[in-house]
């Protein structure tokens, strides 16, 4: 039926085009003006304001403080440091409990059950030592920090603080040649980059939206917070006296997050002067009223929606990854296992970048989900160093009673402070996970921009770790 109507539709359109020339050119302005005038008139009739101005406006007072030129940024840093400090110092103990339950108690039980079953030995190993242990590890390492971090962050959001952060940042975003609303999509990226990429829909100019999509990856996501928190605790926190450890670790994590924001600005600036040149759009950012956070409801939704969701995703990816790692550690080609071959190939490149082969292998395994980077690294390190006292055989994830044990394993694997620092940097600056890349592809509909979104941060990650490693070694050689 459309076939018959289409010429007719074209005629009507042509007619409309002709009419547009004839009618006065300010139709759009008249439309808007009519709407504004009427809205104003109707609102005037319905709303009565108090005769005297309100005695004291709390919202305005808070706003003046948290968005002030002097205090805005310090308050921002203080709040985020506080959140990470509570997360880091609060997560250790429950982490230990869960590890004790899942690894010390449940694992031997399952192993016993499997041993008495009719399953072949290799399948027992694959299921219990590979899949179960990797999952248990993910749960014990990730659940406690997330269960503390997400409710705190959500409370801050429910209160109405995030738009103020965006407000503080939007001028800088504009100066880097991007859209001020990118501050909001970046805030979303701090939870999940895939969600952050979808959130760029609020940006109406395609040029600025692309910039926001490509740079969203520099906002640390759920999958990477645990890596940062763990490494900061292990390697940086231990450099200072015990009373300061929590605070210094928290500051380190905040520092990495800030570096991510700085990189966002730099890459914005670069893109808006090279491939994505154009005008900066103007927009108005609205500051919503502060609302007393609904504590119970926030805790409920943040636990259900975020903590469980992220954990579930981690577990879903950890199961096959655990199996894969177990297999690669137990299938031998010549004298060495597949995993060892791979690590040996990548080791020179890794060391050149101040990382190591294990880390690079872990990042290849973890393309589907950043969450499993740390478990993979630990398992491969144990495998490589043959620390059988900690584990119980090749490709077995092991009991880690305390952070001290984790530190011991990594140090045995040749880790130094440089490795940890570069690992934290690389965790911040590398390709987005496959979910995010898929979302980018769906949102941009372009293979070119998707590939660029993957390669740009990866290249940048190599450059940054290379520079840090070489400057570090240079300084070490001089002193």
């Amino acid at each position, binding site marked *: 039926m459309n076939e018959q109507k289409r010429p007719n539709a074209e005629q009507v359109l042509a007619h409309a085009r002709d009419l547009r020339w004839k009618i006065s050119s300010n139709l759009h302005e008249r439309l808007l003006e009519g709407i504004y005038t009427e809205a104003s008139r109707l609102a005037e*009739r319905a709303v009565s304001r108090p005769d005297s101005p309100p005695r004291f406006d709390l919202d305005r007072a808070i706003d003046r403080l948290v968005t002030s030129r002097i205090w805005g940024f310090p308050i921002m840093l203080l709040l985020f440091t506080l959140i990470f400090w509570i997360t880091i110092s609060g997560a250790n103990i429950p982490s230990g409990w869960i590890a004790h339950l899942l690894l010390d108690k449940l694992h031997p039980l399952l192993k016993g059950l499997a041993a008495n079953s009719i399953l072949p030995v290799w399948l027992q190993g694959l299921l219990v030592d590979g899949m179960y242990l990797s999952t248990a590890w993910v749960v014990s390492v990730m659940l406690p920090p997330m269960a503390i971090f997400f409710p705190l962050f959500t409370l801050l959001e429910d209160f109405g603080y995030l738009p103020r952060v965006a407000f503080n940042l939007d001028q800088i975003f504009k100066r880097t040649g991007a859209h001020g609303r990118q501050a909001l999509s970046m805030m979303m990226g701090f*939870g999940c980059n895939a969600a952050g990429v979808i*959130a760029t829909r609020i940006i109406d100019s395609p040029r600025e939206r692309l910039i926001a999509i490509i740079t969203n990856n520099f906002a640390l996501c759920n999958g990477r917070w645990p890596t940062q928190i763990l490494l900061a605790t292990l390697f940086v926190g231990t450099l200072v006296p015990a009373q300061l450890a929590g605070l210094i670790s928290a500051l380190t994590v905040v520092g990495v997050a800030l570096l991510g924001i700085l990189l966002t600005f730099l890459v914005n600036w670069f893109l808006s002067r090279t491939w994505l040149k154009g005008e900066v759009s103007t927009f108005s950012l609205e500051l919503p009223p502060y609302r007393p956070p609904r504590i119970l409801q926030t805790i409920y*939704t943040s636990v259900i929606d975020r903590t469980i969701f992220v954990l579930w995703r981690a577990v879903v990816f950890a199961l096959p990854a655990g199996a894969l790692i177990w297999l690669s550690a137990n299938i031998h080609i010549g004298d060495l296992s597949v995993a060892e071959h791979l690590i040996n190939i990548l080791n020179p490149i890794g060391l050149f970048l101040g990382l190591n082969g294990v880390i690079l292998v872990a990042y290849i395994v973890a393309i589907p989900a950043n969450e499993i980077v740390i478990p993979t690294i630990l398992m491969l390190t144990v495998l490589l160093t043959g620390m059988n006292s900690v584990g119980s055989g090749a490709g077995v994830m092991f009991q880690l009673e305390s952070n001290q044990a984790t530190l011991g394993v990594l140090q045995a694997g040749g880790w130094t402070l440089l490795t940890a620092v570069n690992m934290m940097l690389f965790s911040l600056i590398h390709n987005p996970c496959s979910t995010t890349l898929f979302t980018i592809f769906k949102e941009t509909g372009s293979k070119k921009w998707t590939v660029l979104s993957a390669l740009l941060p990866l290249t940048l990650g190599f450059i940054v770790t290379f520079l840090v490693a070489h400057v570090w070694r240079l300084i070490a050689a001089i002193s």
Partner: protein
Amino acid sequence: MNEHKPIETIQPGCESCPAHHAANLLKLGVDMQDWDYVVALAGNPNTGKSTVFNALTGLRQHTGNWPGKTVARAEGGMEYAGSRYKLVDLPGTYSLLSTSVDEEIARDFILFGQPDVTIVVVDATRLERNLNLVLQVLEITDRVVICLNLMDEAKRHGLTVDDRRLARDLGVPVVPTVARYGKGLDALLQSIHDVAAGKLRTKPYRIQQFSKELEGTISDLSKKVRAVFPNLPNPRWVAIRLLDGDERIIEAFEKGDLGELSQNTTESVELQPQLSRGHAK
């Protein structure tokens, strides 16, 4: 889809009793089988659309105290007074004349999705700006209920909003609410039901702003638009958009998308699971 089966199981007297409403509401969550009516939730950013949506459907679409949180549409179901409703939570927009993807999703749905009722959630503390959108929605559809939300905030700022006068002026029901604490939702449900079932005839306020000559041109073009797409509910609005040179409407007109009413599927629906599970942060 909507004319026949409002199954009235309640005694006539009970319907008007406020105590009965809460009991009448059945939150269906994502169960949206065989709905009788489609209800769209529109409004400016950060007025509490998602909070209203959650309160009515029992879903836990992530809500956040910041504008622009819902960028795709979310859908959920509820049952009230014997009728089943599909609720669609749209992204917040300041206007329907604009160009970003989220605003387009909202506009397309109100335009082409032909909801049985469009609820416009309005921030009582910023009435003037919110009315800009209300007036534009009223140009497109007459089945509108205004949810005058954040009444507690208005009170906190010492503002009094006369909802009855507003209702008279706009010609559609206006229900004051505090969605965050579930206040006024009973009355909102009743209004939605009344408008959906056609019990309440609305007389939406339309702006008279053009000269006689221009009005003549518009109504002339409207007739031609109607000739091409006879099922279009708002040819006048489309005519004005064409005269204004709205690229998207012209494109929809050319492709015949305007004719395929209520078959609106945007890609946003596929992306929705990621958001509704609430890691939208």
